[in-house]
């Protein structure tokens, strides 16, 4: 899916403050950052459409982790409000809002119009007044464009809402590839490729997804093209061809193969040629994840007696153990910033949680997450957020402190989230 269908129609009003908005240095781990409090009275326009755009907007603010939407129950004027009346600012100041975001939704033929305004409560300055259009059924794209604009202007961040999450969805007993935007909108379950599809992993250009399918009654490795929907076999040796990970160039795929006996990490060209083995251990080696510079590979191995995270230096083939806490650490994910490895960690209480460690093995910490049992972390393209699967079968997004988590699916049946790079 491309963003070409979405266009910024026109800039309305005077927006002198945008250029002068200070970019805020975000140091999440130092705990210095205070989230911006946003009031969002309900949007004006056709009720169903306005309500659904409002919901996407509120969820997206929460996903950014940079904004907190104040509960509408505390609003003195809950809306609907299309524009902010100058006299009402003190009402928003009273409930502690830093910004008020209002919008008017309207229809124009088959298209919908999202006219959004954002006022800084302390100064009364209109910091945003922009109109976005999209198809009536794809109004979330207009919200994404607004959010990506805010992230860039206010924080100098990349377009988070131009990234997707692939995962596996259980449908009538079958497991299928499921792809959605990172806030859960625009979701598509992709049929075909057999009734058991697992282990999705994005190519660095965000176009292809490596995955495992039992189409030929064996866990074989395929590459799925999200534009042409073609599925191409990459590795189909009898036994395991599982847990794929593209290297940063996109030309090679690391995966688990048992072709030589026990499960080891192998490397193969993305076209299926030139397979080589990277690990050599009696134990189970699986779940490779490349560092962003492509020089090393985090992976899971049971060579220490139970599954732990290790780091393989590709040039020297040296292997260093990263995790010493706990007896079951699996499925490492490398941060795109290269400074963290996230993984699934079994707590002493027998609950699974997402944990982080530096690539030198220091600063192990466990993230609160859903608190119910969390697995399979995957970093956002800006490295600030982590998607994971909770034990109720939903996909969630949380920040690196793990203190706040947003569910992006409902109803359960979802597993193995894989966050894409920015899709241009």
């Amino acid at each position, binding site marked *: 899916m491309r963003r070409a269908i979405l266009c910024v129609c026109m800039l309305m009003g005077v927006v002198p403050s945008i250029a002068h908005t200070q970019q805020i240095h975000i140091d999440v781990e130092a705990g210095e950052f205070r989230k911006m409090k946003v009031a969002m009275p309900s949007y004006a326009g056709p009720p169903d459409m306005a309500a659904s755009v409002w919901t996407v907007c509120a969820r997206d603010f929460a996903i950014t982790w940079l904004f907190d939407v104040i509960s509408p129950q505390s609003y003195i004027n809950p809306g609907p409000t299309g524009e902010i009346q100058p006299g009402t600012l003190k009402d928003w100041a009273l409930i502690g809002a830093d910004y008020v975001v209002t919008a008017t939704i309207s229809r124009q033929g088959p298209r919908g119009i999202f006219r959004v305004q954002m006022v800084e409560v302390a100064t009364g300055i209109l910091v945003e007044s922009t109109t976005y259009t999209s198809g009536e059924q794809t109004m979330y794209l207009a919200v994404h464009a607004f959010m990506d604009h805010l992230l860039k202007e206010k924080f100098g961040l990349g377009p988070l809402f131009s990234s997707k999450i692939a995962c596996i969805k259980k449908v009538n007993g079958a497991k299928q590839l499921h792809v959605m935007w990172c806030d859960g909108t625009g979701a598509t379950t992709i049929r075909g490729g057999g009734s058991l599809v697992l282990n999705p992993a994005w190519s660095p250009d965000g176009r292809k997804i490596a995955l495992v399918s039992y189409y030929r009654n064996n866990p074989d490795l395929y590459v799925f093209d999200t534009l042409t929907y073609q599925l191409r076999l990459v590795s189909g040796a009898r036994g395991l061809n599982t847990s794929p990970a593209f290297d940063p160039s996109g030309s090679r795929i690391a995966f688990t193969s048992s072709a030589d006996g026990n*499960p080891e990490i192998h490397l193969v060209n993305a076209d299926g040629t030139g397979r080589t083995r990277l690990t050599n251990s009696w134990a189970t080696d699986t779940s490779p994840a490349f560092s962003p510079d492509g020089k090393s590979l985090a992976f899971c191995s049971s060579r220490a007696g139970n599954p732990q995270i290790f780091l393989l230096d590709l040039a020297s083939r040296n292997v260093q153990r990263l995790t010493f806490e706990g007896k079951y650490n699996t499925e490492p994910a490398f941060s795109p910033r290269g400074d963290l490895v996230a993984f699934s960690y079994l707590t002493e209480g027998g609950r699974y949680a997402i944990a982080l460690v530096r690539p030198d093995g220091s600063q192990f910490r466990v993230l609160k997450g859903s608190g119910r049992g969390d697995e399979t972390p995957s970093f956002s393209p800006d490295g600030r957020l982590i998607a994971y699967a909770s034990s109720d079968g939903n996909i969630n997004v949380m920040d690196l402190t793990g203190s706040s988590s947003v569910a992006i699916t409902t109803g359960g049946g979802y597993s193995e989230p894989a966050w894409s790079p920015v899709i241009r």
Partner: protein
Amino acid sequence: MGRKNDIASAVIMLGVALFLAGCPKQALEPVGAGGPQPQAQPQQESPAMTPEQPAMQMEPYGGASGQGAVRLDQARQDFQDADIMFEYDSFSLTAEAKKVLAEKARFLNAHPGMKVLIEGHCDERGTAEYNLALGERRAKAAQEYLVFLGVNAQRLSTISYGEEKPLDPEANEAAWAKNRRAHFVITEG
């Protein structure tokens, strides 16, 4: 005359012996597709008459009642129903698992035409990718032990389903214990 009769009965007996010897092999074929066909090819040579085929084994299949095939059906069913179980995050064979595998080896050695797919399964705890590898190791552990007990490796294939096909979908100790298993499916013979 008496001598002729003796010869005639000897011929008949040889025919019966050949028939009985040939029978176990014949009886394997029609399972699942109706009863045995004892009259099908009584004149057939006796390729099955080999030292490994003890005479005792022929008995169940000799009857024309179809009881032999019923028993074989039951034996096949028992073979496929008996999973071997594993401890959490382990692919070591327990004493009980080895006992079950020894029975399976006896059965397979008695039915040399049979081919078997060994499925490795895990409970839902832990993560999908690691469990795919663990399931593979469980299936391979069972395969290696059967080979150790004299079953030709060519007759045994393996597949891992990881945590993807639990026998019991509940999330409790009893269900998890049931799901940590290797399952055996007769694919041929």
